[in-house]
């Protein structure tokens, strides 16, 4: 099967996952995002690249931050943005995903930004659009199950490049619940594609996927060992429902062994940066002293996220 997110010419048609995207495409997105960071500083924060286009934010799973940043990005490109919180509407009445989508197509959608609780849902959507001759409509994955969160992965890459320039000289550690994390999967795909020589994952065995080393990472269960000398620390959010069950005994024990504290961060390179996709659980996966400290680049991540999403949307609009 061909990678459905690339056109026959290798252009981006949809953005569904970073896994399998060539380095040239990833770099192109980051390059295009760079000038968009300045738009926020202008008096008129608008570009006309998506004028007349309708972007549908279709969120089958609740989200505030991601949906808002997509909305801002689309509006800065002059698109008409329609937000649908499907989590609380038609699917609860028994409508299937594709029926919902067909209805939105009939309302004149040009681009779907979709979040869904099931891994692979955006592929289904992209395949359906192709099968029904609506190939000009693009799909942007805003997070699907545990599978991928490509724009988060890209904004993380943008942040790393902004602070560290050269990917090929870095050691990067991803810490926490990799098993349930779509963010981690997108980060691993991007980091390995962009040539980071050592990507580490750190976590207890209950929170790491089977055969994770096959994704090209080194596995550490001892956080101190795993953080030694790293240039970038990428923290993952730990969902509350993972706590107090068969995966973890308690948040206290997790914090003690896998929470990022100033003491543990000492082991990383002196100029290490700390990323977090948000929203943070202070005192669970990250100490406030680190979250608010000089190594953290968590707020720049949010700002860059808008530029990266603008880049993706403008490329898709140009490609289709």
């Amino acid at each position, binding site marked *: *099967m061909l*990678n*459905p997110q690339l056109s026959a010419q290798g252009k981006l048609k949809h953005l569904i996952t970073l*896994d399998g995207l060539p380095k040239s495409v990833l770099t192109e997105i980051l390059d295009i995002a760079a000038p968009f960071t300045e738009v926020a500083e202008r008096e008129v924060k608008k570009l006309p690249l998506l004028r007349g286009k309708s972007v549908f934010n279709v969120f089958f799973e609740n989200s505030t931050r991601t949906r808002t940043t997509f909305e801002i990005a689309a509006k800065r490109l002059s698109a008409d943005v329609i937000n649908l919180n499907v989590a609380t509407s038609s699917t609860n009445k028994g409508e*299937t*995903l*594709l029926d919902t989508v067909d209805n939105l197509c009939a309302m004149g959608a040009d681009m779907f930004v979709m979040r*869904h609780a*099931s*891994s*692979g*849902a955006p*592929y*289904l959507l992209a395949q*359906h659009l192709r099968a029904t001759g609506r190939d000009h409509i693009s799909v942007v994955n805003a997070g*699907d*199950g*545990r*599978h*991928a969160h490509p724009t988060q992965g890209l904004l993380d890459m943008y942040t790393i490049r902004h602070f560290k320039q050269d990917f090929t000289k870095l050691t990067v550690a991803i810490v926490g619940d990799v098993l349930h994390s*779509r963010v981690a*999967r997108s980060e691993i795909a991007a980091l390995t594609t962009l040539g980071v020589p050592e990507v580490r994952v750190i976590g207890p065995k209950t929170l790491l*996927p*089977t*055969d*994770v080393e*096959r*994704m090209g990472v080194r596995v550490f269960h001892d956080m101190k060992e795993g953080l030694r000398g790293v240039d970038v620390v990428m923290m993952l959010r730990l969902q509350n429902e993972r706590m107090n069950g068969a995966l973890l005994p308690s948040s206290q024990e997790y914090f003690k062994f896998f929470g990022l504290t100033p003491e543990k961060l000492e082991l990383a390179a002196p100029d290490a940066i700390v990323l977090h996709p948000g929203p943070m659980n202070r005192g669970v996966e990250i100490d406030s002293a680190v979250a608010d400290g000089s190594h953290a680049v968590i707020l720049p991540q949010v700002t860059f996220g808008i530029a990266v999403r603008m880049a993706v949307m403008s490329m898709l609009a140009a490609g289709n």
Partner: protein
Amino acid sequence: MNIQIANGRVIDPANQIDAQLDVFIAEGKIVAVGAAPAGFSPDRLIDAKGLIVAPGLVDLSARLREPGFEYRATLESEMQAAMAGGITSLACPPDTDPALDEPGLVEMLCFRAKNLNCAHVYPVGALTAKLEGKRITEMAELVEAGCVAFSQVNTPVVDTQVLLRAMQYAATFGFRVWLQPIDPHLAKGGVAHDGEAASRLGLTGIPVEAETVALETYLSLAKLTGVKLHITRISSAAALEAIERARAGGLDVTCDIAAHHLHLCDMDIGYFDPQCYVIPPLRSQRDRSALRTALAAGKINAVCSDHTPVDDDGKQMPFAEAEPGMTGLELLLPLVLKWAQEDKVDLAQALARVTASAAGIMGITKGGHLGVGARADVCIFDANAEKVLTREDLKSQGKNTPFLGLPLPGIVKHTLVEGRVMFGA
């Protein structure tokens, strides 16, 4: 009607026949293979030159979707599919709605099937009421109604005490118990083999141990109770090893696999192809090759279609929300032939796994072979011809298979049931 099937290569694994011979049929039974019986005069001559003449296939698992799921498929549509696939006997698993746990339901299914006068349908009764794993069924009554075995399909009994009692009770009467090894806890929420592919795609994995942990329990209890145990749909090399160990310890146990496990592995899920969502899941390449080797060596006794027709709506869903299963009646023969060709397995040996051996597991004596006196259930096919599988070709109401668009060997020319030509001109 007297029929003579002439000039074909007759392969009858049960009777160790593989030779160019004529088959003679009268009154729905095989009356001779080789020389014509005295005074035989055919009303119809079927020229099988260049074709294989084999016993009609015996399928250990075909969901006919009745009762309860008639919108997905009906006996009528699936019987046509069976005929097109050369399958003349099939076991029907009890995961219908309601489950086949009462004699009346089984009698109704047998009655409906008999009226269609097509493939012979052998219901498999539910081992426990509603397949809930709490109360054992009226097995003796169910056998009188027509059940050939008892199964939980893929809803394992959670309480091992109940499982033990069910096996003891079945052993009392010498009934067959068919169990699919699934540990309900280890398999919980899983939709794909727990390995690299599932990890990358973010799909919840089903570890091989979900199969082996349950299997070891079943084997221990079979040893204890002496029940006739058949293990259905194994998917992993580790399960094979466990079965071999039990056999070495003196346990008489048989096992089968689904035909698609001979050809597909977890990588075939690709970009979340819901057609590759099956239970048990498609395992690793290593597992697949172990299954292929074990089947050739006879360590796996039978191959079945595990036919599960699912409509398009049931598959056009995100992977984990789709319904599992593949359509299979029309793919059983092609997939077995493809395996035999690729692994250079003798055709007679390959066909034994879908005829004589499967009939033995089901406990039927009048089908699955071409011995004199047997039912004249015959499948005549071209083993070398290939065709590309299309949606339109499939008679089954279920078009759900990842093999669409692929060339597959084996074209059925005629299917005979009790001497009646039910498929092919």
